[in-house]
């Protein structure tokens, strides 16, 4: 029975548990998000530990509502729990206001749950950084949510193993006039840059939302077409 917080300050003013959680994120499979003028794309590595794994059963990009989805880098089960919590938050908002929740609002409310895990007794911080992508009334959004509960809006970003290199690559490639198709290509190129081994339609996952406000996770056949275009 623990009433006391497990995450406590070090003498240097750091919360080591959060730092360690960020280490777990940094070891995770790379995920990339790019916000275009008219949409957002999420691309994530889905490398499996063995060829025996049923690739189609692994879902790394999860729909939170029709127009918002998320992916992650870090501990898969922690992401699963947060995604489910996010879905409940969306529904709670929907029941109260019968209105499409804004991406910023959802991010803020989910961030509250993540922060609680850094301060409440007996529980550890979540070991994931989440990328939330959505298209609401205000337009396209890309938000990163860290284990500390801090959240940042990005034009383009990467999390996980290749985050540093990918972000450097993106800094050169990104421009504010990008359309969603350019963004998808750029995201795939960025992932390919640091990819260990051969990139295939089944060892990555791609999710796209355009100005129709409908988030779609691309089937392998469509991913194949985009990958071929890169050649």
């Amino acid at each position: 029975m623990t009433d006391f917080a497990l995450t406590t300050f070090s003498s240097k003013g750091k919360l080591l548990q959060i730092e360690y959680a960020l280490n777990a994120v940094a070891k995770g499979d790379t995920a990339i998000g790019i916000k275009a003028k008219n949409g957002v794309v999420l691309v994530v590595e889905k490398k499996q530990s063995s060829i025996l794994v049923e690739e189609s059963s692994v879902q790394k990009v999860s729909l939170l509502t029709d127009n918002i989805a998320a992916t992650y880098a870090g501990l898969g089960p922690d992401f699963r729990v947060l995604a489910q919590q996010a879905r409940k938050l969306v529904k709670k908002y929907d029941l109260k206001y019968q209105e499409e929740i804004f991406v910023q609002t959802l991010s803020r409310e989910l961030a509250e749950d993540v922060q609680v895990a850094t301060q409440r007794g007996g529980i550890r911080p979540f070991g994931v950084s989440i990328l939330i992508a959505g298209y609401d009334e205000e337009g396209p959004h890309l938000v990163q949510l860290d284990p500390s509960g801090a959240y940042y809006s990005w034009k383009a970003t990467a999390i996980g193993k290749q985050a540093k290199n990918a972000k450097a690559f993106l800094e050169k490639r990104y421009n504010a006039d990008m359309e969603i198709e350019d963004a998808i290509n750029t995201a795939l190129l960025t992932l390919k840059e640091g990819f260990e081994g051969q990139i295939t339609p089944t060892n990555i996952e791609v999710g796209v939302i355009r100005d129709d406000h409908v988030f779609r996770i691309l089937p392998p056949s469509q991913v194949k077409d985009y990958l071929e275009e890169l050649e």
Partner: protein
Amino acid sequence: MSGIFEYNGGSIVGMKGKNCIAMACDRRFGQQMSTITTNYQKVFKIQDNILLALSGLNTDIHTFYALMEKEINLYNLKENRKMKPTTFANLVASALYERRFGPFFVTPIVAGLENGKPILATYDSIGCKSDLDDFQVGGTGGNYIYGACEAFFKPDMNPEELEEVIGQSLVSGCDRDALSGWGGVVYVLTEQKLTVKILKTKQT
């Protein structure tokens, strides 16, 4: 206590016009047969483009209004934007249902303009929302006001016509109801402004 909804008395009415809406209420605050004041506010401006009218038990009118004010203020601060009238209309329904087994003894009417389009919604005391009609009534004089509305109302009236019709309907209704009256207030909301007019009813 013959009817908790009849204890304080009072009537409200809401109407849709062409790119405008109107709300009217009486001014009586009574306790059964006794009249306490003749300037009780029953229509509230929730936002520049949303009006909330409440009839029923006055203490609940006051409390429910305060609750809605709090909700919209927090929403404005949290979401950093104004609330849409349709969203507010849904919020009222949720807030009423939250007290399903210990309800607010009020029957609200919400009226607003969303991108110029008139919005009107009415509820029972436990949050059943109805947004299908062009005019709605509430309170002890409601049924009397209905009669006048049915006779005078026509769709797509301009603000001046709407003000006249809703005013006449309210007055006809309140003059026939013992528990409503002692003056009326008419609010007409257009994209540009909100006009408030005080009417005389039978002083009884």
